């Protein structure tokens, strides 16, 4: 090591001498001070992009990338199959994950970590049981209800959830959710969530003050998990979640009442397109902007049974008021999309290149503003 340092100093001296001889009056560079960036820059628009890093799955990452420029802002480690979620106010990042004390083996510890979303510094952690679902990153496997509750998806493979009190920083225990999956917050009620179930019903669970299930209701059959399954990602308008199905139908489900009820359904595809196998595909196939009235869906043609994770050949744009398609964007091999808060920018994960494609959709013609390579297996985008 010391030898290497001495060599480096010697080389540095030679370079300095050479530079002095050849450039004459060029000013000497000042001595520098090492600092640490205090936070991601003001004015940046952070996107939080989980990456399961499957080739070394014990070491997942949450990439933080600027949605304006595609510039890389920082990273948070997410451990072994960690799920991440921005807090409702955007100030914190929750990560439900686990670690072995020998990296690949040994004793396992599962936790929810709380990180500052701008300084990217660790704040504190709350214990989880080892029933935590070790799943690919999907929206709604970790959800915040109101300001107090954080609900974590479990799978052993029997399904349940763990309820965390964020204020008391305590794990309050488990609620069984047999045959049901994901945690959809009900925005108007800070202690209630929904879940999609394997028999086509939707369950609603209301928490009591101790974090236990005070009430549970089961809907009528609202979808067909065999013939036309719903993608797990849903995008809400108030308490109504809009899902898309494997064959290209939108199914809206209202979680506001006593029981979940269907609030409408319509087809993304014409009968001719349906015959040609145009379907949604990917891991986060929807982006909804309520203000602009636009729904974006990652679509592929020639699809059929088993094609539901296929990257997009085209991103279709719908007017949610008229339920008509109003445009088509290049597919960018997207498996995950999101729209900016203002509705002028569409973000897409190109699964082939493991890159982020930033497209300006404010004008008549879409314009790619930037692309940026991000990690290895990004499959989700979250922003505020």
């Amino acid at each position: 090591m010391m030898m290497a340092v001495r060599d480096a100093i010697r080389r540095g001296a030679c370079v300095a001498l050479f530079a002095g001889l050849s450039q004459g009056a060029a000013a000497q560079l000042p001595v520098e001070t090492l600092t640490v960036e205090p936070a991601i820059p003001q004015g940046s628009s952070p996107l939080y992009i989980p990456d399961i890093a499957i080739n070394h799955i014990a070491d997942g990452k949450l990439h933080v990338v600027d949605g304006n420029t595609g510039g890389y802002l920082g990273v948070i480690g997410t451990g072994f199959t960690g799920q991440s979620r921005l807090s409702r106010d955007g100030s914190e990042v929750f990560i439900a994950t686990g670690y072995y004390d020998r990296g690949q083996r040994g004793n396992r510890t599962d936790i929810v970590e709380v990180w500052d979303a701008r300084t990217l510094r660790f704040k504190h952690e709350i214990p989880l049981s080892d029933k935590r679902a070790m799943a690919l990153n999907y929206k709604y496997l970790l959800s915040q209800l109101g300001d107090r509750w954080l609900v974590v998806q479990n799978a052993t493979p029997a399904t349940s959830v763990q309820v965390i009190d964020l204020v008391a920083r305590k794990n309050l225990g488990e609620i069984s959710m047999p045959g049901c999956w994901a945690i959809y917050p009900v925005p108007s009620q800070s202690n209630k969530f929904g879940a999609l179930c394997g028999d086509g019903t939707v369950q609603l669970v209301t928490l009591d003050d101790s974090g236990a299930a005070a009430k549970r209701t089961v809907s009528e059959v609202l979808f067909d998990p065999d013939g036309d399954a719903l993608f797990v990602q849903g995008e809400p308008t108030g308490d109504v979640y809009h899902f898309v199905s494997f064959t290209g139908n939108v199914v809206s489900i209202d979680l506001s009442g006593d029981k979940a009820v269907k609030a409408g359904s319509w087809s993304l595809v014409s009968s001719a397109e349906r015959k040609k196998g145009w379907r949604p595909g990917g891991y986060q196939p929807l982006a909804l902007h309520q203000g602009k009235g636009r729904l974006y869906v990652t679509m592929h043609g020639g699809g059929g049974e088993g094609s539901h994770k296929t990257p997009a050949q085209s991103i279709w744009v719908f007017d949610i008021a008229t339920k008509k398609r109003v445009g088509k964007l290049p597919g960018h091999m997207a498996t995950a999309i999101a729209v900016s808060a203002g509705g002028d920018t569409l973000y897409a994960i190109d699964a082939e290149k493991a890159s982020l494609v930033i497209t300006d959709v404010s004008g008549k013609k879409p314009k790619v503003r930037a692309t940026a390579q991000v990690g290895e297996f990004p499959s989700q985008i979250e922003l505020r």
Partner: protein
Amino acid sequence: MILQILQTWIDRMAERRVRQAAQMTSRRGALARIGKLMVGGAVLPMLPFDRSVGEAEAALPKAQDPTACEYWRNCALDGFLCTCCGGSVTSCPPGAEASKVTWVGTCRNPKDGRNYLVSYNDCCGKVACGRCLCNFNERERPAYRMGVHNDINWCMADKQTMYHCTVSVIVGVTEA
């Protein structure tokens, strides 16, 4: 067709990773690996699981190659093939442990035209193998149908849950 697109995507991703690795390892070794992957990613005339092509499927060498993503048993396999990791279609690589729980697929063997129930056990307790990443999803469903879901670590019920690779074991015939 569409599965072909999906698999080509996986192949290209794998190729890109090899290219990235090439910057850090020997160029000659990396080129050899890229060559192998490009052979693996060659365009197929048809798919092993496309019902419409009937008996012609059996002629596809990849449908009978246990180290190919297109191997007929892999119709709902998402993960690293244990056949590329020191194991086989029915055995975990040395030192790993077979998962206690699994997801299942129903895949048609083009050779005999039968649909087989295939158990996709994960092999557990070692680091990710990182070879032959495949992603086929016939009859796969989201985790509200857990028994046919593949975006989750099926080592979840083992003491050592680290995901290593996946095997495809025939556990029954669904129809003659």
